[in-house]
């Protein structure tokens, strides 16, 4: 029999997989309770896993008992445990939210739960896999589930957005797969454990090409500027719970993999030239400026939030020149976690406003905003995290990033980080001021289930409270398992 830690590790993959398939068995629109229960159990597993990893005990599981390179190994170190925890912590409230959000007979909800289950399974499997080809399969699982979720509305806009997203994600995973193929050709293995000692700075040209292809493909999937073209229509056009899932979790999955490869098996190559880390950093800076500018200009609420995601993803790449320092690494993951919680909160809050008014032009939200103070408050708290203001986790990330950048004397990063926060304030307050505008007419607002308001508030509150618990997260990240 296996121990509790491994049970949690495997359970995090099997549970959502089974619940997704079972939800399909139950029939269209059904299975919400099942998925919520499974997600609650997954959250428990993730907590348990994080707890044991924090104690210094890295979770490892050899599937089939073979061990790499013949078999596939699963590993959950601190970084993986943190991402797993974030995923379950965001997904459970979103599941509750989705159940209240979709009308039970709507077309959108018919296959939402099976797709939800498989998406979660894909994400969890991705975070713990240490086999480059297996990672490709998990990437596709995540990508196709996300595309399906974007399209569930079935409207022309959603379908077009889903197609655009599908082509982008296929191009990305295609490039990644070619990279894996080249790696296998060069080394005869795709297991991280056996590749890490083999890859050296003077690797064959082919390995350099493979690294480039894999990273480029993943950058496209992470929607790093200027490859972000597919993100705003997909995240802005999908149903609110879907937008929240995609912005909070899905883009983080490919970022996670980039980080893993960059610091893991590809480290000898990425460290071979001192200017290499500045490429993602430069694109990240571009993302922050361009994404924020588009968010400031966007007339629609969800488009604005989607562009905010483009901008916030920039910070994740701004840390690349600082990855050598533990502070830089922690800053990136802190930001990923903070943004995950806050962006989920923001999209769910936007969903409430849109549901209440039936439209999503920012300029026309004033009446609704004043009748849904809790939702506005949730939006505001999420905004605090995005602006990087205290006392949020986003603020800790920003502080850590500035500290690390100053340590290296990288003034450009300091400047971009500070101005990014100010730009975020511009687009966040564009929405918040609606709550205070004098409205002449009494807007009629459709009744909204209380669950929706409270889940948005809970997620936003979590992103704030995490600002007081950064120590545990940093300690968790210090447990590094991809040697």
């Amino acid at each position, binding site marked *: 029999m296996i121990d509790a830690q491994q049970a949690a590790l495997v359970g995090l993959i099997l549970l959502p997989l089974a619940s997704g398939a079972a939800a399909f068995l139950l029939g269209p629109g059904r299975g919400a309770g099942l998925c919520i229960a499974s997600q609650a159990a997954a959250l428990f597993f993730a907590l348990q896993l994080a707890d044991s990893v924090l104690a210094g005990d890295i979770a490892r599981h050899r599937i089939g008992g073979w061990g790499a390179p013949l078999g596939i190994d699963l590993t959950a170190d601190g970084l993986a445990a943190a991402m797993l925890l974030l995923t379950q912590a965001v997904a459970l409230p979103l599941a509750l939210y989705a159940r209240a959000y979709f009308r039970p007979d709507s077309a959108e909800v018919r296959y939402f739960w099976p797709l939800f289950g498989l998406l979660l399974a894909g994400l969890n499997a991705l975070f713990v896999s240490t086999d480059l*080809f297996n990672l*490709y*399969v998990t990437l*596709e699982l995540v990508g*196709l589930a996300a*595309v*399906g979720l974007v*399209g569930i509305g*079935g*409207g*022309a*806009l959603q*379908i*077009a957005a*889903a*197609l*655009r997203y*599908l*082509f982008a994600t*296929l*191009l990305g995973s*295609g*490039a990644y*797969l*070619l990279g*894996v*193929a*080249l790696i*296998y*050709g060069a080394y*005869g293995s*795709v297991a991280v454990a056996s590749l890490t000692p083999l890859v050296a700075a003077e690797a064959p040209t082919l390995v350099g090409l493979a690294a480039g292809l894999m990273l480029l493909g993943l950058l496209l999937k992470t929607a790093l500027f200027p490859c972000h*073209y597919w993100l705003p*229509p997909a995240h802005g056009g999908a149903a609110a719970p879907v937008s929240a899932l995609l912005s909070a979790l899905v883009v983080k999955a490919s970022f996670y993999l980039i980080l893993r490869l960059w610091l893991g098996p590809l480290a000898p190559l990425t460290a071979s030239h001192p200017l290499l880390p500045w490429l993602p950093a430069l694109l990240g800076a571009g993302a922050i400026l361009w994404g924020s500018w588009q968010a400031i200009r*966007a*007339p*629609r609420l969800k*488009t604005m939030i989607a562009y905010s995601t483009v901008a916030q993803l920039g910070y994740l790449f701004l840390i690349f020149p600082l990855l050598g320092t533990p502070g830089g690494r922690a800053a990136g993951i802190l930001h990923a976690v903070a943004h995950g919680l806050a962006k989920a909160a923001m999209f769910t809050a936007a969903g409430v406003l849109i549901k209440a008014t039936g439209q999503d032009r920012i300029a026309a939200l004033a009446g609704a905003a004043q009748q849904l103070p809790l939702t506005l408050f949730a939006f505001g708290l999420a905004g605090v995290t995005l602006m990087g203001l205290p006392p949020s986790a986003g603020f800790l990330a920003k502080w850590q990033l500035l500290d690390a950048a100053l340590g290296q004397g990288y003034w450009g990063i300091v400047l971009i980080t500070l101005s990014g926060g100010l730009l975020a304030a511009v687009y966040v307050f564009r929405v918040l001021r609606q709550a205070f505008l004098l409205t002449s007419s009494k807007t009629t607002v459709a009744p909204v289930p209380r669950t929706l308001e409270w889940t948005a508030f809970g997620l936003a509150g979590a992103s704030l409270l995490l600002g007081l618990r950064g120590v545990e997260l940093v300690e968790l990240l210090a447990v590094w398992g991809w040697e």
Partner: protein
Amino acid sequence: MSTGLLFALVGAALFPLGAAGLLLQRHLLRRILAFNLMGSGAFLVLVGLAQRQDVPDPVPQAMVLTGIVVAVAATALALALTRRLHALTGRLELPEAAHD
């Protein structure tokens, strides 16, 4: 030159061709075909490069089987979305990015 390496070289030519098609073509069916071309390129490289000494290696062959099934799934989804888009708008091209 061994057969395996030849396969790999063909794959190395097919992949960029497919990728370029995926980016440049506007007609959705052509893009789906381009994607399959790209995928085939990757599969050829995976199998061919691994057996460039012409000794078969079962591991990449199994991987390619998996990859093919994934590609089939993606193609089916792409076709379904394309049909749906056609049913809704009568077009087989993606609208220009909406400037909203």
